[in-house]
């Protein structure tokens, strides 16, 4: 009886579309924001209120990881990204980004490392604290990725109220940060020898970057939320200025002009701009074989357009909307070790959906 019931529920949770089938593997999550695969069956995921949890995708069991730092959960802040160390199999190390109050006053972005042992974080330490203090956790960024040289990139958003600071190098608003895995600063960072610049800055002039991908060839791609119009896909190179808010293709939510300029010498142009905004929330570069039609494509989840944008790396002007049948605001996308694509929907009571190939 139990078998038939579970089979019935399983069938019920599979939706089909013209090209793909969708299977809901987890639901009723508490504002889950990011996830990473520990194995084909097991994921480690964050929930914005401050929970780090391990879920089995086959038996649906969920375990809480303990010894999590206190986070400032409101607006766009909370426990954000979780990633595994490139040497996780030998050192069990993970990294989490989160927003928290500094001395119970203003909020900023933190990056911590810890070892995951027996469902507990041990040797947890803060390896980066952004010099980007704000009264509310808006535009945090908080995405983490590893470069092929083993150093780590972290996106730090412009804080909305502090957008102009994205153009100065004495703070972490609107910056991509590059540090070593122990928090120290690589000596080949682009601004290391600049007197009035923070030496961990890698690139600047960004807004709210929520997609960060490093391809196997080592190229760094990033996307960021624009204001009303003007979401961008960029290729990131050290020391470059990406222009926000001095140049932009969008206007403010209030309708006000942010800048009448869309380009200027010394400021980078995006590879791709979305007008109107799609609100890009995460991105992978799919290099596996399970979905041949998606291989070597960027897959970008979107909150507003409620789909996944497929963009071919060889022709960035062509994009396709995928999984529109789901009709969910999509928060995060990952591919499993075997290559299956999983999508995390956005908001409270969100769910994890597996995409079954054609």
């Amino acid at each position, binding site marked *: 009886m139990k078998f038939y019931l579970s089979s019935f529920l399983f069938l019920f949770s599979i939706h089909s579309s013209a090209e793909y089938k969708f299977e809901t593997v987890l639901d009723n999550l508490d504002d889950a924001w990011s996830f990473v695969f520990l194995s084909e069956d097991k994921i480690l995921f964050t929930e914005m209120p401050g929970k780090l949890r391990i879920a089995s995708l086959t038996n649906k069991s969920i375990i809480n990881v303990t010894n999590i730092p206190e986070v400032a959960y409101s607006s766009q802040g909370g426990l954000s990204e979780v990633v595994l160390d490139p040497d996780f199999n030998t050192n069990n190390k993970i990294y989490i980004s989160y927003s928290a109050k500094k001395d119970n006053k203003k909020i900023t972005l933190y990056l911590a490392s810890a070892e995951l042992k027996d469902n507990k974080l041990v040797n947890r330490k803060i390896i980066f604290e952004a010099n980007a203090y704000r009264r509310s956790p808006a535009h945090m960024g908080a995405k983490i990725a590893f470069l092929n040289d083993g150093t780590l990139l972290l996106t730090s958003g412009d804080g909305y*109220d502090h957008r102009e600071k994205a153009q100065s190098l004495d703070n972490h608003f609107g910056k991509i940060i590059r540090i070593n895995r122990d928090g120290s600063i690589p000596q080949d960072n682009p601004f290391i020898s600049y007197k009035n610049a923070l030496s961990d800055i890698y690139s600047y002039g960004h807004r709210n970057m929520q997609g960060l991908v490093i391809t196997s060839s080592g190229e760094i791609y990033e996307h960021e939320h624009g204001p009303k119009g003007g979401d961008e896909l960029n290729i990131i190179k050290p020391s470059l200025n990406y222009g926000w808010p001095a140049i932009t293709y969008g206007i403010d939510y209030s309708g*006000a002009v942010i*800048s009448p300029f869309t380009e200027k010498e010394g400021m980078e142009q995006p590879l791709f701009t979305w007008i109107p905004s799609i609100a890009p929330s995460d991105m992978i570069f799919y290099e596996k074989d399970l979905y041949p039609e998606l291989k070597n494509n960027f897959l970008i989840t979107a909150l507003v357009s409620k789909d996944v944008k497929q963009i071919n790396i060889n022709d960035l002007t062509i994009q396709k909307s995928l999984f529109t049948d789901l009709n969910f605001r999509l928060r995060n996308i990952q591919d499993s070790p075997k290559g299956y694509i999983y999508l995390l929907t956005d908001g409270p009571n969100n769910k994890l959906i597996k995409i079954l190939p054609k």
Partner: protein
Amino acid sequence: MKIAKYPFAVLSAALFTVMLITPISSISNLIWLNSVNMPIGIFKSLEVLLFDFQRLGILLYGVVIIGFAVAFSVTGLLTKYINFHAKYLYAFAGACAIGIAMYLMVVLLFESELLGGNRTIIGKILHWLAGFFGGYFYYFLISKNYDYTFIIRYLGVLYAYIILGFSLNWIFTPDTAAADFGFILKDLADNAQNALLKDFTSFFVATLIFALLGVVTLNPTWFFSAGIIYICAAIFNLTAVLIHGTEYNLIYVGEIFLGLWPIFLGITILIKR
């Protein structure tokens, strides 16, 4: 008219205040852009100021109307019991209304400051001052008796305010403006681009000028001129669909609205005279 002057005084004072408030954000933004060596000149400054007045202004107009309506109603009651110069009470009420409105916008919008010009202490003081002058202007409006021309002028200015948005788009961002009508500007030949830009820009700027001339002179001919152009646009929109087989669209609804509005003002002037 005696009762009608109060709501129209609120609407007029709010519009006056919005004219004072929007440049605070625009100018603070322009100052910053200039500080990072962006080539800000007169043309770019004008673009920012006018677009902000039109787009940001509409949002602020709604907020200020609500704030002023509450503040001036309360102040109207208080003036019956407080023996103090009413003009200063209304001015103070205007400042309070703007201060509270700006505060609530932050609280209700995830603790984020939507108005760039309100992020500094100086900016906040300037916003309060704008509210102060708005309140003072309100008192000025209600302390006199008006005839129907007050309402005609208000509705004429509001009409011109709406047309201003279309005009600005065609003057400063023709690509976007053309796209709204289904044209990809850069795909057109040079002559076609030129024809499109000059015709559309003339269309909107001319009707804007007609409306403003109507407001200043109260000569109904100007309002009729603006109205006839939009009514013609609606008629020929529909004939293009019915006779020439172009795709049906709903733009004619807006055209009829923008045509009937000034015609109504013109007819009112004729009747009253």
